[in-house]
């Protein structure tokens, strides 16, 4: 990917939830956001500032009412839903706060799952199982856990497995939604460092959402979403 093209570029974004959902109407406005390849952005804001909405917009499961989202130089939000789903499979890795893994699949099967959805990521990973094993080793998951069902792991282990899954097949964009909030403080910084190192090694742009400002120092840029 050409380094001069931002991995994520958002301009004049506006999205409104209708007021019929039992609560007040809510709107997200974001005049500008850009993350270059291999760069990382720390995104924070109070509850209700629209972080989840923004992630759903960048993931392509929501579309903005106005403005545009460009991913890897493509007018992403203008694509039809099926193309956005395919784009997400090919180019974006997600890590959520918790419950990232399919509980009945083994650790290894969870990690290779993106390669099942995306031929592109399968091709980039070459041998999906070998790539998964390597990533799990980097993320400090012992080999004897690989065949275990995902639900047998501790929360910290599950988050690292989720990181391996987001990284497999080298997607250009990584989105982490409060991935450390279920971890205790000493492990949080370690996890962030590990994630940043792997993202850099992958050449991926990273958006890291958190309300814990202590972590902000690890990132290239910081952006606050206001309520």
């Amino acid at each position: 990917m050409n380094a001069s093209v931002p991995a994520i570029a958002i301009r004049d974004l506006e999205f409104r939830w209708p007021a019929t959902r039992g609560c007040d109407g809510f709107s997200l406005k974001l005049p500008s956001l850009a993350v270059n390849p291999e760069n990382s952005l720390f995104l924070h804001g109070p509850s209700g500032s629209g972080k989840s909405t923004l992630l759903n917009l960048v993931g392509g499961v929501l579309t903005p009412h106005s403005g545009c989202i460009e991913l890897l130089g493509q007018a992403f939000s203008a694509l039809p839903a099926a193309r956005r789903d395919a784009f997400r499979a090919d180019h974006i890795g997600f890590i959520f706060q918790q419950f990232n893994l399919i509980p009945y699949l083994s650790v290894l099967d969870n990690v290779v799952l993106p390669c099942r959805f995306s031929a592109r990521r399968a091709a980039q990973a070459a041998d999906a199982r070998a790539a998964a094993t390597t990533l799990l080793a980097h993320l400090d998951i012992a080999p004897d856990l690989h065949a275990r069902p995902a639900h047998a792991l501790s929360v910290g282990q599950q988050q690292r497995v989720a990181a391996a899954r987001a990284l497999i097949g080298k997607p250009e964009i990584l989105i982490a939604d409060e991935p450390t909030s279920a971890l205790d403080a000493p492990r949080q910084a370690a996890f962030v460092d590990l994630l940043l190192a792997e993202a850099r090694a992958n050449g991926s742009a990273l958006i890291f959402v958190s309300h814990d400002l202590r972590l902000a120092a690890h990132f290239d840029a910081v952006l606050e979403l206001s309520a």
Partner: protein
Amino acid sequence: MRRWRFLLPLAAASAWNRRATLGLTLIAIILASTLLLAVERLRHDTRASFAQSVSGADLIVGARSSPLQLVLYSVFRLGEASNNIRWASYRKIADNPAIAWTIPLSLGDSHRGYPVLGTSADYFRHFRYGFKTPLAFSVGRPFADGREGVFEAVLGADVARKLGYRNGEQIILSHGSGALTGQDHADKPFSVVGILSPTGTPVDRTVHVSLAAIEAIHLDWQGGLPLPGLAVAADQAIEYDLTPRDITAFLVGLHQRTTVFGIQRQIAGFKDEPLQAVLPGVVLDQLWQSLAFGEKLLRGLSWLILSLGLAGLLAVMLAGLGERRRELAILRALGAGLPHIATLLVLESLLLGVLGALGGLLLLTVVSTLAGPWLAENWGIVLQSLLPGSDEWLLLAAIIATCLLAGVLPAWRASRLALADGLTPRL
């Protein structure tokens, strides 16, 4: 490029994870499928085994009563005995030049629960079953026509196999159904001279003797009881005139089938006693028609039971969606579109449909194997094959298709949920 093939193992793994609840639903579907298949198989095989039991005869002639009673009793040994017809009447009709052959049938006695049929050697020459197949001997020969054959018997395949009889063995016939003790024709034992090959028809469960034999064992009987003080020994019996006085019915084969209605009319107008001649195929058709409503009812009920099973499946799948929202959101984040989510749900119901239908087939096979001999013994219904016929494959496909269709609702609901939830389920 999108990939779809991995969805099947994923659906299977997910279903396996919920095997406790889905398993109960699967059992309901299996039982309903078994019932549906069993109704169909019984219907088909009943018809086939009845139709195959008299494939050569153009007419069955007997005393005037219900045509169905005549056919059921004379060919299938089912239902109540019809009245006898006089031997003289039989001879008169049999001499009609349009008639190629006749087989006289005389029923009433039994051997250890198996019916004894008095007939002539023409039985082995002219009787046809299945697709016009003649009878064949697996061992031995027909009973002899003259006096030397009076105490000879030919066994159907099942009789010999079940009772463990070999050629040359001595057997004793009982009067009537053999239900009463002391009603044996113990003074006149028969020797087995031949055993027929299996036919899959009532022939297999019949003991065949000559008409003269029936006459001989009843020489010293009257009105269903042995005459006191009048015992006729076997070697004396053959000295008597053993021409039968009457028979139960007879089968008629014509030179030309086109004459069948003419002959039928002639027999119906027979002066000496009231007789009827029936076309076995027509009578059986009437039987099936009269049973059609019951069959439809049974089939309708079976479908109703299947739909109950499917309602259970729907309930389980819809209730399960609540717990699966996280799972579906994870798949969405990994790039699954709504079509993927819907496919995953439909695959689950398809999987249960296939397992249910095949499980039903398996259970039916087990049940058929166990119940087959009983059905043949008591109802003359021979299950034709343990493998499904083309109708049953269609039925299996229909069951699977119905399950697939039932999955559409949870699939639609799941994609609605997935659309509303996006990547982060609101739980």
